Structures are given as C-alpha cells and as structure tokens.
C-alpha cells in the first residue's frame, strides 16, 4: 500500500512537472510581446524596452526563465502580474479560486443529492415511466451545452421575469442561476452512471442470495445493492470534482462570475500569461491530488483493490 502510494505520488509530481514544462513551452510560442502590451501606445525607445525586459527577466533564454519561475513556484511565490502591475498573482488566483470553489461545491452537492437517488430508483424500477423519464432527461442534460442553458436562464429569469440578477456575485440571489446551471450537467451524468452501476450490482449472485433467503426488499436494496453500487459512483465523482473547476470557464464568463474560469479567460485575452500559467498549474495539481485521493478512498472502501 505504501509503495503504491509513493509510486503514485512520484508519478503525480512527474505529471505536474511535465504540464508546467508544456505550458511554459506553449506560452513561448505565443505571438505578441508582453512588454509591448504593457507599454501600450506610449512612445518608448528600444533601450527603454530592453530595460523593462531585463527587469522582468525576459531577456534571459527560456530555460533560465523557466528555472526562475519553477523555483519560485515551488517556494509558493507566483510573482506579480506584468500586465496588471503590482498585483500579486497568488492573491488574484486565490480570491478567484474561492469564488469558483463555492460555485462548484454547491452545484456538486445539489447534483449528487438529486442524481444518486434518481439513478438508484430508475434502476430498481427499470423499464417504468420513471426510468424512461429520468433517462430521457439525463440524455438531454448531457447533450445541452451548459452555457446555453445559462443564456436561456438569463433570458427567462432575469430579462423576462426580473427575479434574479443576470451577472455578478453581489448577493445570495446571484448564486442561484450559475449553481443550478452547473448542477444540471453533473446531475445528468451522475444519474446515468448510478443507474448503470446499480443495474450491474442487481444482477450479481449475492443479491439473488439475499433475496432468496427472505431479506426484506428494502434491506436488500439499501444494504446490498446501493452500498456496492456507490463504489464506482464515488470514483467517478472524485474524477469529476477534479475537472469541475475547469468546466466553469464558459459558465463563469456567461454570468460574469468573478471566479477562476473568468480570470483565466480574461488573462488569455489580455496576454497575461503568468496568470494563465499559474492557473493551469493550480488546476493540474488539483486534478493530480484528487485522482490520488480518489484511488486511495477506493482502496480503503473496497479491499479487493488493495490486493492488486
């Protein structure tokens, strides 16, 4: 178990390193000179440009720049933004991350609380109107682009009815639309998954046995079926939570939500590539850590995994 954990950790660190290298490399290919963007329209002599470059270390070869960046990063120092001068990147990123975290945690909780019971019920009442109805809904939910649901929600609830604010994060009412919009896609995916997992467990021998020995149907369902069906569901939830942060980019842009996704998009638009790098690294670390945690949880819940 310990060797497995160490192995996973080392692989994770390697992946994070490779992602950082790849991101840095892509940024080097970007057209447009950040210094030029920084000065804007102002007239500067080439000498002044060189001075600014030297100040930010942009005159160094790429591997020196990479080394400076990664060694600062390891010490937790993300530097300050070139474009928005003086603002520490770590501050920008952590403020935005907490806003995104609120959105994703809430929408995920809502999605899980609705989708798991629906999925189990659909599996138990297979081929019933409830099964067909909920699966039709989730098939649709997976196919609809979530940012379009966001647009339609703004049209209906903000423009037509005037109930909820269309943008921003100023009051609790501003949370409602983005949280629900983000929850819909998760709900659809989770319900399908739970249903599939439950049906698979229901076909196994121990379920037949427990039924045959006369256990009450309710006990069979709760103790035997649901408990086992939730294993794969937990794994997938872990992997999906890891990615939900990056899934919010478009929805945050629609609702002008001051989170990580919007910060990322704005930084891309303004060529603030240090911020872009910082966010990509943060998201990757989250994905890697979540994946390891998920695998660990799985190993703890299901002893069979440990043997492998």
């Amino acid at each position: 178990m310990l060797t497995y954990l160490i192995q996973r950790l080392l692989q994770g660190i390697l992946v994070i390193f490779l992602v950082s290298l790849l991101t840095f490399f892509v940024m080097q290919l970007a057209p447009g000179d950040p210094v030029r963007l920084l000065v804007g329209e102002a007239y500067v002599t080439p000498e002044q440009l060189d001075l600014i470059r030297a100040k930010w270390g942009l005159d160094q070869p790429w591997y020196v720049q990479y080394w400076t960046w990664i060694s600062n990063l390891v010490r937790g120092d993300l530097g300050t933004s070139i474009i928005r001068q003086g603002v520490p990147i770590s501050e920008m990123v952590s403020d935005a991350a907490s806003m995104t975290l609120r959105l994703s945690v809430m929408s995920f909780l809502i999605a899980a609380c609705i989708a798991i019971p629906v999925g189990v019920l659909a599996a138990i009442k297979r081929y019933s109107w409830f099964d067909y109805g909920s699966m039709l809904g989730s098939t649709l939910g997976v196919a609809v682009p979530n940012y379009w649901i966001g647009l339609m929600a703004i049209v209906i609830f903000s423009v037509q009815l005037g109930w909820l604010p269309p943008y921003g994060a100023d009051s609790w009412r501003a949370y409602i639309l983005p949280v629900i919009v983000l929850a819909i896609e998760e709900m659809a995916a989770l319900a399908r998954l739970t249903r599939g997992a439950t049906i698979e467990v229901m076909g196994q021998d121990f379920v037949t046995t427990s039924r045959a020995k006369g256990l009450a149907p309710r006990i069979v369902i709760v103790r035997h079926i649901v408990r086992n069906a939730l294993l794969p569901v937990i794994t997938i939830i872990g992997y999906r939570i890891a990615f939900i942060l990056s899934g919010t980019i478009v929805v945050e842009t629609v609702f002008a939500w001051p989170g990580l996704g919007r910060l990322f998009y704005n930084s891309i638009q303004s060529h603030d590539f240090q911020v872009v790098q910082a966010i990509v690294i943060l998201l990757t670390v989250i994905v890697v850590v979540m994946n390891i945690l998920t695998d660990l949880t799985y190993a703890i819940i299901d002893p069979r995994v440990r043997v492998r």
Partner: protein
Amino acid sequence: MSGHAIPQPGGVTLREATQPQQQTSERRRILRRFMRYKPGLVGLGIIILLVTLAVFAPWIAPYSPEEINTPLRGASPSSNYWLGNDDIGRDILSRLIYGSRIALIVGIGATAIAVTIGVTVGALAGYFGGKVDFILSRLVDTLMAFPLLALLLTLSSVFGPSLRNVVVVIGLTVWASYARLVRAEVLSLRERDFVLAARASGAGDRRIIFRHIVPNALGPVIVIASLAVGGVIILESALSFLGLGVSRPTASWGTMLSDGREYIRNYPHIAIAPGVAITITVLSFNLVGDGLRDALDPRQRE
C-alpha cells in the same frame, strides 16, 4: 497476404480460421443489434439529415449567411425569415444551416485526428512495453491531467482562431483516452495465439500491430469515438462562443450564440436557435454511440 495462408488440418487456412468468415456474419449481427435500438436509428437519421444540410447548404439556405440587411436588425421570426434576423440583420435560419458545416467538420475531423494519434500511441505503448510504454504513458497521463478547455483556449489564442486551427488543436488534445483504451486492449491481445501465429509466419512488428492487433482493438474505440463527437462539437461551440474558435463572420453555432449573448436584452430570440441546433446534433451522436455500444459490446448493455 499469402504470407500467412498456412494450410491447417481440415483444409482451412489460418487466415480464414482467425478472421474473415466469422467477420462477415459478426458484422451482420452487429448491424442487426444496432437496428434494434430505435433511438440510435433516429439519431442516425438526424445525422444524415444534417450532413445533407451541410453539403447542400447553398441550395437549401434561403439567403446568404453573410448578407447584411440593416433594416431587419433583430427582427422577430416572420414568414420570409422563419427564425428571424440577428443583430445586424442576417437571416438566422441560413446561418444555422451553414453552421452545421462547421459543427460537422470540427466534430468529425478532430475526432478522426484524435483516434489516429490515440490508436497509434496506445498500440505502440502496449505492444512494445518497457521504456516506450513508460514515456508514452506519462505523456498520456500529462494530457489527461491537463484541464482540457484551459489547454484549448491557450492553444487557440497562441495559434490564432481559424477553422483549421480549431480542428487541429482539439484533435491534438483529446486523444489521450483512446491511447489508454487501446493500450489496455493491446496488452491482452499481444499474448494471443493469432499474434504468435502471425509472428511465426514471419510478419514484422509493424504488420503485426496494424494488421492483426489494432483491427481487433477497434470495437471499443469506435464506440468511444462516436460518443466523443458530441463532446467535441460542444467544445468547438464553447471556443467560438468565447471568440477563440472559428473566426467571424463565418457562421458557427458558437459565434451565433456569442452574438445572441450580447443582444440578449433586446433580441433574446437570436440565442435560441443555435443552442437547439447544438443540442439536437450532440444528442444524435450520443444516441448513435449508445446504439453502437449495445451492438458492439452486448455485455456492457445497460
């Protein structure tokens, strides 16, 4: 081909015994199973319709997708303009029809690129093992840990928004799951007797991989690929929506939604049709994928 037509007892050549005869009847069985899944057939019908619309767009669309008609800015649906006009007076229906071209080109093109890369990488990693496997697998891990949309946005802003770049950039970033799948399949296939037989008859590595192993690993790849086309279409629309996909004034469902967003207060109807179009298209590909999964892998049937 004659290389491994080794006569076997009973007059059946090895090639016949391992592949073709069974394959034709197996194909027919797969087709029959697919035909039984009605939603999959509906999806297939809609996709055929969409392809027709895309190919014959100039003849089917009532107006030019880029023709600006200023007096009709934001006009509601009418008998001449069934879906109304957009913020600068272009016919929404015509733009929608032309937009199907972009969705299909990106959806199918990018998926084809991803499958090609993924199958090759996965097959090489699984077949050769060792160092090759280690390096390729870390590459796959890296791509899978990358927040996809973030990577796509970065790459498109670096390479500039255009149809070609969107196809290439999406294709280059979504292949990792195919590689992982094919690698696992190849790991089990490479120990099978028919591979040994092929090697014994003198086939080289390249021939064994691409003639014998890969065709046998393609079933699940086809299923995942058909389910992935819808996801790619959503990605393209999101990129275009954010202004980093297909560049204006080309009609793409994503850019149409982005126009719709800007005028959502005054002309909310602009944003409705493109979203419906995306949903129907993605839904159709997903249904066909579900049908193919049932047909190709009856075990996984839900």
